[in-house]
């Protein structure tokens, strides 16, 4: 994908010099800045991709199928749930419904980030949409709110994240059975650490902290309802808690 030129009209000119440099650089420079910004995502995706590669092979995916699945779907939890449903003997329709429900939050993310993507050409919007995940969304939103993100930097974040996911999947698919236990290096905590840092980055003021805590409490409350199903539970919790939490924020603070 060619890095888009021109900066988004939504940017306010930032005050500090580092920010000014981030915006003034050429498109390739901004793309490289995006690669660096997204590198922690790369590190986080690698081990999870390896896990996906191993599991997919166990239920009958070839290496080619496994890698193409990750390269085209780029859908972490959605891919794992698909494996689980396939392994349980579900048909195509059941699998697709499950993965859609799990990743329904992408609709929410895309609506949110679209306010920053006005006036971009459709192919650029499509490319940025393709690389939209929990992590790229959060990094790019945090970057936008500092006035630093550009289409090129977002493309860099997306590219390095995609690479981590696909490379990890490939390593897992090819090396299944030959890889030591990656848990020894703390990779189990790579994603939680990323989310924790992003929470701090996105908490602009005390209202955000309150809403974030409320959403977290909602997840815990929902998780304690034993009546809810098993397969879809966590993803539903996340979606419901996010929508309700944000709704509370919008209802309480009408000026912002």
């Amino acid at each position, binding site marked *: 994908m060619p890095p888009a030129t021109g900066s988004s009209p939504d940017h306010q000119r930032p005050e500090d010099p580092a920010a000014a440099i981030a915006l003034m650089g050429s498109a390739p420079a901004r793309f490289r800045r995006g690669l660096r910004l997204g590198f922690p995502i790369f590190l986080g995706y690698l081990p999870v991709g390896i896990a996906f590669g191993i599991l997919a092979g166990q239920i009958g995916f070839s290496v080619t199928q496994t890698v193409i699945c990750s390269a085209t779907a780029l859908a972490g939890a959605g891919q794992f749930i698909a494996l689980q449903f396939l392994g349980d003997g579900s048909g195509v329709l059941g*699998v697709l419904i499950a993965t859609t429900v799990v*990743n329904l939050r992408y609709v929410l993310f895309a609506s949110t980030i679209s306010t920053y993507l006005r006036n971009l050409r459709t192919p650029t919007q499509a490319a940025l949409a393709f690389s939209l995940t929990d992590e790229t969304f959060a990094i790019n939103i945090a970057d936008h709110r500092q006035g630093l993100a550009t289409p090129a930097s977002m493309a860099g974040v997306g590219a390095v994240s995609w690479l981590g996911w696909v490379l990890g999947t490939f390593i897992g698919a090819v090396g299944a059975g030959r890889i030591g236990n990656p848990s020894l290096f703390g990779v189990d905590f790579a994603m939680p650490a990323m989310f924790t*840092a992003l929470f701090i980055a996105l908490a602009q003021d005390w209202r955000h902290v309150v809403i974030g805590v409320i959403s977290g409490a909602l*997840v815990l409350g929902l998780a*304690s309802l034993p009546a809810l199903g098993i397969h879809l539970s966590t993803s539903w919790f996340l979606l419901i808690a996010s929508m309700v939490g*944000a709704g509370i924020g919008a209802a309480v603070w009408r000026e912002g």
Partner: protein
Amino acid sequence: MKASLSSTLIWAVIVGMAALNFAMRFQPIAVVSRVNLPAPIARWLSFVPISVMGALVASEVLLPNQEWSNPLVGPHLYAAIVTALVFRFTRSFLGASLAGMASFVLFQHALRAIGQ
């Protein structure tokens, strides 16, 4: 789980997932970026990112393995506090992630050593 799935079924799932995931990501952008959102909707969307992160942190840190467990006897909460502090003072995602992962391993060993 056995390797008994047909190749056709797997390809159908791969193509379907690619199409659906792209549609969910692109459709809202194609539509919403061309209209002016009503103020209440825009305000609601402005709170979405922090809500999502609050929900994700709660589920990853307080519901490891998808169920509640006392956070004081596991490494997740402690490692999350280290991560938050490192990010707060360095503003580095990479530094905070690595510090979180390293402290997670250390807390795992320490908790095991004291018999939790």
